């Protein structure tokens, strides 16, 4: 299972191996994230959406040592806990943005700061998004104020294999290693459809068509399987392994099931082709991103266990996005699938909760009876699953990492503000306390910083 380690010729010492694909402790560019110590806290009297489907009125949640200690109604608050009045407020798990380009497509946008599309060849599986992340991107702090505690930062979609993703804790940091979610599995970004064929077709080279896209995908998987075979042969016979190849290493990691597939793919028919391609080469697609036509094959995606990360409002920017509907996520949900509301945008990424609200209201308008307790999964538990972190974040259950948001109102409403946000039980945002609102280095001393963002 730990093919990354084998490929790299590394030992298989694993840090706290939970989940399918934790990274070896001596993996390169290892996380240096440190949970901040914080006194235990209790939020009392809030409406709590736990991310498991439960919707608790007048609930209490206890947090200790960075973990959720207890959640429920009528729980007594032990001595020594900071007591937070939750009456009239809502509590949810910290939001998880399953499709972000923060740090790799930063503000301000300059010709020099667009670091998310390598795009110089159809296959750039060798690049790692973490090597582009600028921790001083002011957008991280804005997402924090929107309740986002974990982000999947992806390379762009201009080519077939955009590179490796990185999963970040949304904490102020100077290095990307300080933000890396410890032991989060890696992902690879793949893109169907218009983007790769337009990018390379315009340069007079392959892929220029959708069939060209698939042909190059298949060629890459054939090479990756061959690479994996040669390494395995060398390992079993004691021969010389092939020279390490970063591109093939990422793809072989997918074939081994260690690296998750995040596939930008809009059209239903293309998703069906990609599912079959996965069967041909023996890998699973974890999540279709954007996936604006997912509702057309909702039962298939539910059966295949593939998550759908999408928007509510975005449509029509491209031909392949023409059939987007607001009810996409609720229809995936109704079919028993894994629906996710994502941002792909630094403005929208500050209000994932509202985008989920648009989808929820549209779903209800279409007659789908979905409660807030279920819909909150679209921005918490389900993206946690897509990131391979379902056993650690995304729900408020005893033992889970204590990522929480205290909302001023129903979080699906425009009127809801994230009053306070915690990551691993430590406060990272407080609307009423400037100590938690510090902007990035970039904005220090810049003009026009006198108003709150």
């Amino acid at each position, binding site marked *: 299972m730990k093919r990354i380690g084998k490929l790299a010729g590394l030992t298989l010492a694993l840090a706290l191996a939970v989940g399918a694909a934790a990274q070896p402790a001596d993996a390169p560019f290892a996380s240096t994230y440190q949970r901040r110590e914080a006194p235990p806290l209790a939020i009392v009297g809030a409406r709590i959406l736990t991310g498991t489907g439960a919707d608790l009125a007048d609930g209490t949640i206890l947090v200790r040592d960075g973990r959720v200690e207890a959640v429920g109604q009528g729980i007594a608050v032990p001595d020594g806990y900071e007591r937070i009045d939750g009456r009239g407020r809502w509590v949810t798990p910290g939001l998880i943005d399953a499709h972000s380009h923060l740090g790799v497509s930063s*503000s*301000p*946008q*300059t010709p020099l700061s667009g670091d998310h599309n390598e795009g110089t060849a159809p296959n750039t599986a060798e690049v790692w998004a973490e090597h582009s992340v600028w921790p001083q991107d*002011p*957008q991280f702090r*804005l997402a924090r104020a929107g309740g986002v505690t974990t982000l999947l930062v992806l390379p762009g979609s201009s080519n077939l294999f955009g590179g490796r993703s990185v999963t970040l804790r949304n904490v102020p940091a100077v290095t990307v290693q300080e933000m890396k979610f410890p032991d989060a599995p890696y992902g690879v970004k793949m893109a169907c459809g218009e983007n790769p064929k*337009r990018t390379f077709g315009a340069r007079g080279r392959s892929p220029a068509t959708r069939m060209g896209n698939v042909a190059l995908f298949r060629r890459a998987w054939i090479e990756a399987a061959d690479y994996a075979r040669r390494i395995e042969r060398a390992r079993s016979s004691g021969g010389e392994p092939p020279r390490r190849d970063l591109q093939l290493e990422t793809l072989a990691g997918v074939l081994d099931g260690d690296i998750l597939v995040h596939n930008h793919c809009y059209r239903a028919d293309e998703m069906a082709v990609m599912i079959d391609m996965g069967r041909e080469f023996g890998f699973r697609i974890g999540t279709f991103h954007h996936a604006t036509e997912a*509702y*057309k094959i*909702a*039962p298939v995606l*539910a059966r295949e266990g593939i998550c759908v990360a999408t928007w509510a*409002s*975005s*449509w*029509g*920017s*491209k*031909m392949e996005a*023409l*059939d987007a*509907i*607001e*009810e996409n996520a609720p*229809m*995936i949900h*109704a*079919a*028993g699938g894994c629906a996710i509301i994502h941002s792909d945008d630094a*403005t929208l990424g*500050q*209000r994932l909760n*509202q*985008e989920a*609200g*648009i989808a*929820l*209201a*549209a779903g209800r*308008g*279409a*007659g*789908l009876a979905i409660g807030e307790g279920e819909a909150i999964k679209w921005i918490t538990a389900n993206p946690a699953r897509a990131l391979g972190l379902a056993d650690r974040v995304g729900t408020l259950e005893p033992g889970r990492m204590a990522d929480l948001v205290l909302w001023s109102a129903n979080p*699906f*409403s*425009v*009127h*809801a*503000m994230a009053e306070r946000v915690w990551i691993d039980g430590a406060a990272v945002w407080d609307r009423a306390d400037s100590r938690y609102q510090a902007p990035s280095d*970039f*904005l220090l001393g*810049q*003009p*026009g*910083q*006198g*108003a*709150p*963002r």
Partner: protein
Amino acid sequence: MIARLALMLLLSLAAMAAGPARAETFLIANARIATMGRAGTIERGSILVRDGRIAAVGADVAAPDARRIDAGGRIVTPGLIASGTGLGLIEVRSVDAANDRATRLPGISAAFDAGYGLNPDSLLVPVARLSGITRAIATPTYAEGTGAERLFAGQAAAVTLGGQPMLMRRGVAMVLALGEDGAERAGGARGAALTSLRAILADVRDFARRRAAYDRGETRDYLLSRADLEALVPVVERRMKLLVSVNRASDIRDALAFAREERVGIILEGVAEGWRVAAEIAAAGVPVLLTPVDNLPASFEALGATLDNARLLQRAGVLVGFQGNGNHRERELRYNAGNAVAAGLAWEQGLAAVTINPARIFGLDDRVGSIEPGKEADLVIWNGDPLDTLGRPSAIFIRGEAQPMRSRQTELRDRYLPAVLPSPSQGAEP
């Protein structure tokens, strides 16, 4: 019970929409009416609509012979007005053939009139309308690549999102980008853009006095084509405002000074740092259009972008209109207003910024923007807060005609919805 009443209301509206779309006399009763006019908000009142216009509004409106629509205590607002959109001009952003917002034709910049080539059958129209938008300012943009050096994008047109004709009023503003974008079009420097503009306006004034001489070839050479010069005459005569995109505080000051010195009327658009010079904008009596959720320091001219912008400008006395999130995403206009309210703007001001304020900014307030006698009957009945993600329209009227509550998107939804609904007989997936 309430749900059943709502259903009856919707069914009756659907029946109206299915029939011939003809303005009739009707009374919307039992409504909470946000008039956006002098009457303010009427907690429980009625609106009488006759011949497509509002005949009366108030707590007591007698209309015994009018068909009665019971709003069930719901909120009724004026139809929303989307500013700075491509509605009617665009289908798919990445498909050039389906995008009429910009031209590369030499000699047609200021003369480009978005009021021509409007497509009332655009798929975007019902989608925007289903979010309560009944009118829009179809606004030209700049083409990329060749022709990018043009200073003026063209003339915006006011359009109606239901019934014919689509064109409501031509030439409601002349679109001009300054700041970073304008500098780029003027060869790379802000100073060049402003200098070039002054030279052009001098040409236009000269041309306006000496058309006959121009046609005989007896004037000096002008920078622009005859069509462009002609199009700018209403600007120098103060019959058409310049819609000037600027963001940086200093650029806003430059635009205000330019307007004052050249004696032209302007509307400021974008104004990310408007809050920093709010008093100066207010003193100049210049209105602004902004997108309240734009808080990213996305460029060096928007380092001071903040969610507080709308509130601070409004507090300073500036007339503020809101914009949506562009073309296909215009339906998010009302959520943008809701976010400004969440950031501290009064709810009535948030609603005004998407109704009466844009009507005033573009000189349309004699016809739309509020629920007052004599105005065209653009009305929306909402099942919740119009500015909230959780509220949605339950009925929409334009010029007194009930609009279909359908779009291509609802048709796609309804085609695929049965496959995800639990089957009553077996409960298994189809």
